[in-house]
C-alpha cells in the first residue's frame, strides 16, 4: 500500500508538476537570478510540500474511510481506521495552524497594514551602477542613516528600491514608490522616480547641492505646493514635480500672495496665489466654490485651477513667452522623471 501511495505521490499527482516551476529565474524569458530568488526557491519548496501534504492527507482519509466501511465486525480494523483518520486531520491542522501562527507573528512584528502573507516573496530588480537615470551629480547625505537608502549610491546620489506591489500585463513588476518618495521628501530633498527600474533617486533640493540649474521645489512640508500635495489634485508624479518647481519660481510657494496689482497699483497684472494665475485665465477655468477670482489666494482653489490648466494645456500657461523664463528649466529638470 505504502509503495502504491509513494508512486501516486511522485509520478501521478498534479502537485508534483509544480516542482518544475520552483526555480523562478534564469530561464528563457525570465529575469536574471539574484539572492532574493533563493528565498523564493525555499518558499516555493515549502508551498509545494504543503500542497503534497494536502494530497497525502486526502488520500489517507479516503483510504481510512474505505477501511472503516470494509472493516465489518472487526473492531481492531475499525480502531486503526479511526485513529488513522484522526491523526491525519490533527496533523494537517497543525501544519495549517503553524502557517497561521507565523503569519500572525510576522504581521505583529512588522506592524504594517499593507504587509501581505508571510510566504509571498517578491523579488525586485536591484539598482545597478551606471544606470542612466542617476543623473544628478551632487550628493545628499540626509538619508545615509535611513534603512534601505544608500546601498545603490552612484556619484553621491542616494538610491532606494521601491516596493513591488503587483505584476503588469507585460509580465514586468509594478512598483509602488510612495514610501521611498515620502522618506526622501521628509529630508527636504528631491525624489526622482524611475518606474521601470523601480528606484527612487534622492537628491538634496538645497542650493549648492542641486544640478547646474539650481532649481528647487516647494518644501515637502509646504501644504500648498509640495509634490505630494499636488499629486492630491490629480497631477501625475512628473506633473507634480514640475509644478512644485514652478510654484517656487512663481510665488516662493506662498498661497497667500495677493494679486500683483494689489501690491503694485501701477501694474495691470493680476497674477495671484501659489501659481500666479491671472484673473482672465482664472475665470475661464475655475468652477464651484472657487469660481470667483477672490479665491485666488486660497491654496486649494489655486491648485485646482492650476491642475485644470495643466491637464488641458500642459505647462504652456507658465512656459509661454514673457511668462516665466524659469518654467522651461523646471520642465527640463523635472520632466521625464
Amino acid at each position: 500500500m505504502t509503495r502504491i501511495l509513494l508512486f501516486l505521490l511522485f509520478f501521478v499527482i498534479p502537485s508534483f508538476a509544480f516542482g518544475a516551476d520552483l526555480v523562478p529565474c534564469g530561464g528563457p524569458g525570465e529575469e536574471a537570478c539574484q539572492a532574493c530568488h533563493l528565498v523564493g526557491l525555499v518558499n516555493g519548496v515549502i508551498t509545494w510540500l504543503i500542497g503534497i501534504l494536502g494530497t497525502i492527507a486526502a488520500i489517507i482519509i479516503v483510504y481510512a474511510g474505505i477501511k472503516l466501511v470494509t472493516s465489518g465486525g472487526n473492531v481492531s480494523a475499525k480502531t486503526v481506521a479511526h485513529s488513522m483518520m484522526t491523526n491525519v486531520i490533527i496533523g494537517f491542522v497543525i501544519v495549517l495552524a503553524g502557517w497561521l501562527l507565523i503569519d500572525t507573528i510576522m504581521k505583529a512584528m512588522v506592524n504594517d497594514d499593507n504587509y501581505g502573507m508571510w510566504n509571498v516573496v517578491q523579488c525586485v530588480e536591484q539598482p545597478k551602477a551606471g544606470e542612466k537615470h542617476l543623473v544628478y551629480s551632487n550628493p545628499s547625505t540626509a538619508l545615509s542613516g535611513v534603512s534601505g537608502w544608500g546601498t545603490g549610491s552612484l556619484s553621491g546620489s542616494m538610491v532606494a528600491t521601491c516596493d513591488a506591489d503587483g505584476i503588469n500585463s507585460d509580465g514586468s513588476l509594478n512598483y509602488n514608490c510612495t514610501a521611498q518618495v515620502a522618506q526622501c521628501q521628509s529630508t527636504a530633498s528631491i525624489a526622482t522616480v524611475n518606474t521601470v527600474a523601480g528606484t527612487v533617486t534622492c537628491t538634496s533640493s538645497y542650493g549648492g547641492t542641486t544640478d547646474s540649474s539650481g532649481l528647487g521645489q516647494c518644501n515637502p512640508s509646504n501644504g500648498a505646493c509640495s509634490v505630494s500635495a499636488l499629486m492630491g489634485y490629480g497631477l501625475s508624479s512628473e506633473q507634480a514635480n514640475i509644478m512644485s518647481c514652478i510654484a517656487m519660481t512663481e510665488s516662493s510657494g506662498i498661497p497667500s500672495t495677493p494679486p500683483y496689482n494689489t501690491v503694485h497699483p501701477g501694474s495691470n497684472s493680476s497674477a495671484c496665489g501659489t501659481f500666479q494665475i491671472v484673473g482672465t485665465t482664472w475665470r475661464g477655468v475655475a468652477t464651484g466654490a472657487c469660481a470667483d477670482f477672490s479665491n485666488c489666494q486660497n491654496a486649494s482653489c489655486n491648485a485646482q485651477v492650476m491642475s485644470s490648466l495643466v491637464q488641458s494645456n500642459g505647462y504652456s500657461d507658465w512656459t509661454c513667452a514673457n511668462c516665466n523664463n524659469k518654467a522651461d528649466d523646471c520642465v527640463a529638470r523635472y520632466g521625464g522623471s
Partner: protein
Amino acid sequence: MSKLSYILITFILGLLLAIGITLYIKNKPTLVIENKVTYTDSSVILPSTTGSPVEVINFLKDPAVIADAQNPGLYFVGNTFLKGSDNSVPAYVVTYEEKNGYFNIALLVKPLARARLDAEKYLENFLNIDENSLCSLSYTVSVPGYVDEAASGIDYRFSFCPDNVPL
C-alpha cells in the same frame, strides 16, 4: 490519558503561547519618531531636521502673528504682503504652517542679501532661539519670480547655516 489528549493539550498550550507572544509584541512600547509639531499653552515644540526638536514660546499667541483668512492653519509672522510690521514696505514675508511647523520666507525687495539678513534677524529675535536651532528648523528662504526672476526657484537658506547659498 490517551495519545490524542496529549496532542490536543500540547497544541492548545502552543496556541496560547503564540497568542501571548503576539499580544506582548503588539503592546510592547515602541519608539515612534514622528516629524510633528506639538503645541502647549505656553510653548511650541518644532520639528527639527537634525533630530532634536526645538522648543520655543507659543508665538501663535503673539499679536504680531496674523492668521491667513483664506488658508486656515497658515499664519503671517510679522509682515504681511501689504504692510510691514513697522508699517513700512515689507522686505520679506514669513509664513508659518501650523500643521507641519514649517516657515516659508519670501524675500520681496532688493538687495536680496539685506532682506535675508533682516528676515533671519527678525526670526531669531522673535522665536528667541540661537542660529544653530534656527538652521535646524523646517524652512525655506526664496525669492518669488515677480521680485527677481533670475533669483527665483532657489532655496537660499539662512546666511549663517552651512547649506546657505550666497546672495
